[in-house]
């Protein structure tokens, strides 16, 4: 049996360092918010021909909104592995439909073989950007409250509290890494974070369920022993499930990266992969040990006393 409880302070320390480093990154560099949150325009164009960055730059030069906009070259492959046409992605501030059409026309004139069917133009006004950000925060908050309620109902309040702490820990660590690597945060990222919520709660609850069961079967309540035993009993399952989930996610990541080149979905998958790692880690090293620590406190809150006190 591995002594998770005895070593829990090391895990806490590691997590605190990670969260602290992430917080510093978020304060100094911040998150790389995408157009969903800030408003803006993204052109992803398949120009149909080889092109140089200078040529692409020349096409956007007449448009002052796009001054200084970064041009990113996208290179995908078809299913046989042969490279497809090079494309480009330009990110700029919000432009109204007339301005966007003008940019598109400019490219169409300069690159007559441009393939609109393999392109996209997305534009989000500033009003919507703010709304989507609020919507994201609201979804996170509502999901947390709903999960606290359910876990309190099915287990007890301290389980819920420990689970939510672990969840917030996961979100902070993933956000920190995203800030540090300056990966773009868009609406799908929020969906990924929420899925990671579901995933790590899933993982945590299975361990909690074991703790609940093991306590009922014991006469003397040695919580340290019980928690350690429960984590250990669940270890193989935690690892195996993470592995199978990672298999599919990594297949997806490799597929998108290799064949599509660049896509918002890659970031979505990266968030999920990070989430699976952090979620598994926290369900083993943070959630259950934290519950143990919470035993020292008394809460006068309603909740089914599934765990004997």
């Amino acid at each position, binding site marked *: 049996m591995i002594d998770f409880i005895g070593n829990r302070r090391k895990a806490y320390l590691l997590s605190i360092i990670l969260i602290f480093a992430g917080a510093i990154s978020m304060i100094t560099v911040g998150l790389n918010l995408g157009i969903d949150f800030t408003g803006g325009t993204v052109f992803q164009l398949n120009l149909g021909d080889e092109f140089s960055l200078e040529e692409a730059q020349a096409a956007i030069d007449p448009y002052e909104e796009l001054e200084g906009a970064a041009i990113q070259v996208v290179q995908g492959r078809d299913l046989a592995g042969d490279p497809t046409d090079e494309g480009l992605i330009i990110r700029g501030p919000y432009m109204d439909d007339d301005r966007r059409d003008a940019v598109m026309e400019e490219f169409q004139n300069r690159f007559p073989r441009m393939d609109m*069917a393999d392109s996209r133009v997305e534009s989000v006004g500033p009003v919507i950007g703010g709304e989507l950000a609020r919507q994201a925060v609201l979804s996170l908050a509502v999901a947390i409250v709903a999960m606290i309620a359910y876990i309190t109902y099915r287990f007890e309040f301290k389980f819920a509290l420990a689970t939510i702490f672990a969840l917030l820990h996961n979100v902070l660590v993933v956000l920190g890494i995203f800030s540090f690597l300056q990966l773009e945060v868009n609406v799908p990222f929020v*969906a990924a974070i929420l899925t990671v919520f579901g995933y790590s709660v899933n993982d945590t609850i299975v361990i909690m369920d074991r703790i609940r069961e093991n306590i009922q079967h014991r006469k003397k309540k040695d919580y340290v022993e019980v928690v350690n035993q429960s984590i250990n009993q669940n270890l193989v399952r935690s690892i195996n499930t993470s592995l199978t989930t990672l298999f599919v996610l990594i297949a997806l990541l490799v597929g998108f990266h290799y064949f599509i080149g660049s896509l918002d979905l890659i970031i979505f998958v990266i968030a999920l992969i990070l989430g699976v790692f952090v979620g598994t880690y926290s369900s083993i090293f943070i959630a259950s040990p934290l519950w143990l620590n919470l035993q020292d406190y008394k809460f006068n809150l309603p909740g089914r006393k599934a765990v004997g006190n």
Partner: protein
Amino acid sequence: MKKAFKPGLFLVLIVLCLVIIASGYWSFHNAADRDDGIRRGLDIAGGLYMLMEAVETGDREVDDDAIDRAIAIIRTRIDELGVEEPVIAPQGDDRIRIELPDIDDPEQAREIIGRTAMLKFVGPDGEEIVTGANLDRARAERNPEISPRPFVSLEFDREGRELFAAATEKFYGEPISILLDDEVISEPVVRAIITEGQATIEGDFDYEEASELALLLRSGSLPVELRELESRLVGPTLGQRTEEIAAVAAGAGLALVLLFMILYYRTAGLIAGMALVFYTSLVLFVLSQLPTTLTLPGIAGLILSIGMAVDANVIIFERIKDELRSGRTLRSAMESGFRRAFRAILDANITTLIVTIVLFILASGPVRGFAITLFIGILCSMFTAIVFTRFLMRLAFKAGAIQSGAYVGVKES
């Protein structure tokens, strides 16, 4: 204690597995050909998504009635363009969401949707004579006898006819202005008293522009002005390519998971693998039967749920192994393993379901599609793990295909 091998039951098991594999292959194949009856979102199928905000025009407030009328008018305009399965729906108090799959000319579509198309005939004294509300018919015509350029011919309803007749009598020999969205497009001089309520708009346009104007006039003027808040235009090839890659990745991921499960859990792993293939076809089937929309995040969610679907089986198998280690017989270990794992699976999955419900209520667009897909995925995986795997395991046990702990991956010591 060895259990007797029963060839009859074993054959049933094999046939069942073959059926599952065949159905899995079939649904996968159909999904790859998009022949599965599942509706694709605009991010996959390609198309134009727009979120418009209604803004008051001079004399009309933005209320439910105005939004409803605007939607009806936009629908008429879109239908005339021949776009299939358009979505035009109110969102919030003053917004209209428009989704147009398979659009050829997004610029034209936007032009046609957004134009208020307020037509007014105004006399030389600035008095309004008649508006587009009294129009009965409008169409583009070409007639060299009337005009060298294409024009729009109009026909008013009864009230419009009377107003028009009175005005042409009053302003005989004077110019009348025809305004579209407060812009003068034509200023003909009245040369006859028109009692049949017919008029033409001649202007500097080609036939296509004349048709577009006629279309706008036919559908009526928007009661409110629409302003763009958000617009996403995705080409059909781009989304299709992504879906193809995702399908290939899903297949590869599934194969890896199967391999892992068989290596680790042996016969039980093979059964879990069968359950997983069954699960995949089940999800695809359910998705095709429900009016849901599959989006790219939705596909990712689906693929993620494949990985997670195995979880229930892993929980069950680990439970069975635990029970075996504590000295139970295989039969009772299997039964109590399933029973005890059930509660954990239920609680764990319900919390994930809560997240998807929150997302469904609060989010919009592709994320909402993601929530629906994940929700369906979780329900199907619970059903598969709790009902289907159990059934297969029992069958395998009875057939003698699972004879000892080694068949569940317990190392003999």
